[in-house]
């Protein structure tokens, strides 16, 4: 993927090595869970972002907290795609792989592009470690890696030497290896050290020996690149032309949390977040619980059912009420979501999807909870559903979801997934003053109040306990139109089911028309939803550039869909639906619009690669490039 630009090679700063300017690169740090790869990756990301590249990242860690050192089960990785262009995914094939042990090498080598850089910590290629990784012999001694540019560095030894003067224990000294590796990577891609050095000093202010050791390791790695004779070239990725503004790197979960806090503030309400920890949603809870000075009231419930029910209570009592979970927890919440739906209280349920079924692949990404979200409850129980398309998009998706919930007095489901929830990308920081207020008008007139009277949007009044004279009772039994009294009348039941369904359909009035990227008609429409946006968009761009008559439709709203969705679908000869499941959106499109389509279905716990989508597009179009 990384391509040499027309600028060719040049030298830079004080470096004696030639610097090649390239458009983008993909670096992946891999090692043992205990090796600090997530940290190295994050630092590389921040530095690149501050430097001015567009970036996208993909952390990948095992389900065990710390599987036995050196085993395949314990491999942890962090990938960064950084570029001088707009990018939307962490990238397909890796340009440079930093492997801290044999297991990490084994688990990741397949993703390294031909000719890519392979940097290994040779010190860890001992016989026991090779055995733990199920290598029969040392692969570095074979010709298996001839198609890569292999650099064997004794990272462990170098690190020990570098930090000797700090007097740290062997164990602590060994912990600095990641900074050494990071130093090498910084040198290789011509990144400044300042951001990381500042971070180290702040983070370890209370343990100066550690701060010093990490600093020494980082610099040692950097200097190694410069002085050792093994690297013949280094790279530079120029600044990207991003929209001007202040940026910050944010995971989807952080963005969600900020969106929720903002929404509550825009509504002038306390934020109630009732949740039960579950990967990959827990970080929303963690982030929110830090911000109590925004009148954020977090409640760690005893389970997901209690969490959802507490949300119903909080919504009834007038808070902006939200819960977050992942697939199995979502299953547990469904009965209570039905209660929120029939009582028509406004609230938000976030599902950061992970690999299923059942416990499945809990730390991996997947999009297989779409059906569950839109039609997985008992009875006729439609609930608006939308999906965020990237980490930073979670911010606005959260605000939009709350806006719909309170306007339509309904639970809303927001889908993200492990990939965007834990992955991060740059976020252009908005000015709070530019965010539109969320208008809430509670019922307050005792003379005219009727709990189930509807306004033009089909929504009922939000009357909160504490309001004089508005005493009323809500519940899960069918209720009479207008009064809300319990009612078993047959026609009323049909009427109420229709009113509730129509209300959800009315949300389509607020979400605008469905956008199409590319021509409004053509040979092929590629449809996608959720966190696969970047990959699908990039693949379609590539195919368009090749001259294919292909467009891209990314659905943010899954229920209801924008009003023109059906019309768009009918303007293309073929439809290809790409999703990280076995065809859930595809089925839904068939159900709604009676259309035939092809599907690209990936369920491997991993995001799409641009290449595989592009390949599929070309194949569906007959296999030929125009």
């Amino acid at each position, binding site marked *: 993927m990384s391509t040499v630009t027309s600028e060719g090679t040049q030298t830079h700063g004080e470096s004696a090595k030639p610097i090649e300017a390239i458009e983008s690169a993909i670096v992946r740090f891999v090692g043992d869970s205990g090796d600090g790869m997530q940290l190295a990756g994050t630092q590389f990301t921040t530095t690149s972002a501050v430097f001015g590249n567009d970036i996208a990242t993909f952390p990948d860690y095992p389900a065990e907290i710390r599987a036995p050192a050196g085993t395949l089960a314990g491999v942890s990785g962090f990938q960064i795609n950084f570029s001088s262009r707009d990018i939307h995914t962490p990238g397909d094939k890796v340009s440079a792989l930093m492997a801290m042990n044999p297991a990490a090498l084994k688990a990741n080598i397949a993703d390294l592009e031909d000719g890519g850089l392979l940097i290994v910590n040779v010190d860890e290629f001992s016989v026991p470690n090779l055995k733990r990784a199920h290598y029969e012999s040392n692969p570095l001694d074979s010709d298996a890696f001839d198609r890569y540019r292999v650099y064997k560095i004794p990272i462990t030894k170098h690190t020990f030497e570098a930090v000797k003067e700090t007097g740290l224990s062997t164990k602590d000294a060994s912990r600095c290896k990641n900074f050494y590796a990071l130093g090498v990577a910084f040198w290789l891609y011509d990144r400044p050290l300042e951001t990381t050095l500042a971070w180290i000093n702040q983070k370890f202010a209370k343990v100066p020996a550690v701060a010093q050791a990490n600093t020494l390791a980082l610099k040692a790695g950097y200097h190694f690149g410069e002085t050792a004779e093994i690297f013949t070239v280094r790279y530079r990725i120029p600044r990207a032309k991003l929209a001007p503004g202040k940026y910050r790197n944010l995971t989807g979960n952080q963005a969600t949390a900020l969106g929720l806090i903002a929404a509550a503030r825009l509504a002038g309400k306390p934020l109630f977040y009732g949740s039960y920890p579950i990967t990959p949603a827990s970080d929303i809870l963690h982030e929110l619980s830090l911000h109590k000075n925004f009148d954020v009231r977090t409640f760690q419930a005893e389970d997901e059912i209690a969490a959802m029910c507490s949300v119903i209570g909080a919504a009834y009592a007038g808070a902006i009420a939200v819960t977050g979970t992942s697939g199995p927890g979502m299953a547990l919440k469904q*009965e209570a979501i039905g209660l929120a739906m029939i009582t028509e209280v406004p609230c938000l349920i976030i599902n950061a999807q992970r690999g299923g079924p059942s416990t499945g692949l809990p730390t991996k990404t997947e999009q297989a909870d779409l059906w569950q979200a839109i039609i997985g409850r008992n009875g006729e129980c439609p609930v608006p559903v939308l999906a965020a398309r990237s980490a930073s998009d979670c911010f606005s998706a959260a605000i939009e979801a709350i806006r719909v919930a309170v306007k339509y007095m309904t639970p809303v489901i927001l889908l993200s997934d492990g990939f965007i929830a834990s992955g991060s990308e740059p976020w252009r920081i908005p000015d709070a003053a530019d965010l539109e207020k969320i208008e809430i008008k509670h019922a307050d007139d005792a003379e005219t109040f009727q709990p189930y009277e509807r306004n033009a949007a089909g929504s009922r009044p939000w009357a909160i306990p504490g309001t004089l004279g508005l005493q009323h009772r809500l519940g899960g039994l069918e209720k009479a139109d207008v009064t809300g009294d319990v009612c078993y009348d047959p026609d009323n039941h049909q009427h109420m089911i229709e009113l509730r369904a129509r209300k959800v359909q009315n949300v389509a009035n607020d979400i605008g028309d469905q956008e199409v990227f590319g021509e409004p008609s053509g040979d092929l429409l590629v449809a996608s939803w959720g966190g696969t946006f970047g990959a699908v968009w990039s693949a379609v761009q590539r195919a368009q550039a090749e001259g294919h008559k292909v467009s891209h439709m990314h659905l943010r709203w899954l229920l209801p869909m924008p009003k023109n969705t059906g019309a768009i679908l009918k303007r293309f000869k073929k439809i290809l639906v790409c999703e990280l499941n076995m065809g859930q959106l595809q089925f839904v499109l068939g159900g709604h619009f009676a259309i035939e389509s092809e599907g690209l279905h990936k369920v491997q716990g991993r995001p799409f690669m641009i290449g595989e989508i592009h390949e599929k597009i070309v194949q569906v179009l007959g296999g030929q490039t125009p």
Partner: protein
Amino acid sequence: MSAIDTPLKPKDFKSDQEVRWCPGCGDYSILSQMQKVLADVGAEKHNTVFVSGIGCSSRFPYYMDTYGFHGIHGRAASIATGVKIANPDLTVWVITGDGDGLSIGGNHFIHTIRRNIDLKIVLFNNRIYGLTKGQYSPTSEVGKKTRSTPFGSIDNPIHPIAVALGVEVTFVARCVDVDVKNMISVLKRAAAHKGTAFVEVYQNCNVYNHMAFAYASDKKTKDDHVLYLEHGKPMIFGKERDKGIRLNGTMPEVVDLGSGISQDDLLIHDEKAAEPTLAYLLSRMRYPDFPEPMGVFRALEAPTYEAVLMNQIEEATRQKGKGNLNELFGAGDTWEVN
């Protein structure tokens, strides 16, 4: 509507909904006493919320002219928790049954209690599933024949007060549906308690479990089967008040007063005891071996969940200032693109 100045009467707490329990159901009495108690303690209709689950008992909120929420089976305490956290100024009552609160809702029951959030939980214990037409419940006695146990139930019953003490409830009491005076005093005490107050009411389901609590409600016999607890007083009972409870090691025993045993030998009730062991021991006194204690077992002051939560919010706001969105957005490592 603006009746906040004139004191409310019990009937002011009656909603306009038809009460739909079986004629003769014990629930009627509880409803009346609750309406009376709310009037007596000067409750405000608009600041009072009744939350329930599913079951005959859980229809209760419909009949109160307060705010109300008829939830789903077993989850009343969780819904109520959300209400209270969202608005700690509200007075929140939870109405539940032995199935709703202890079978499907058992987990929320114990966790709500341990948090000591300020909810008043009233459990209508009729030792049966009423609404689903007569299956045994977690409080049904062993050997009970019901629709789901034609050969007799084989589960050991759960004792709600013992369970509540297992999670160290700060207020716990018991009363009987027809014993109006005691119920009123117990409900008033619960209303006044700050923290989770749990009240078990023995309730007659005259359709599916008629007379289950006859020993404790029948005027003729109840004095011998019931012990009214009074703080600081020795534990005396019996029609002639001639019997008492004495401690033998860690075991209670029934003694006859007179002939060598005086009031001074009896256990003194201490509802404020920091250790809940005494209350636990009382919860283990059961018919027919013992008179069953009625009234307040335990009433202890302790910080409430919502108070500590709001303190944390105030404290955070004091320290960091009221949250500013732009500061929040721009925190951490940022960079400028021009």
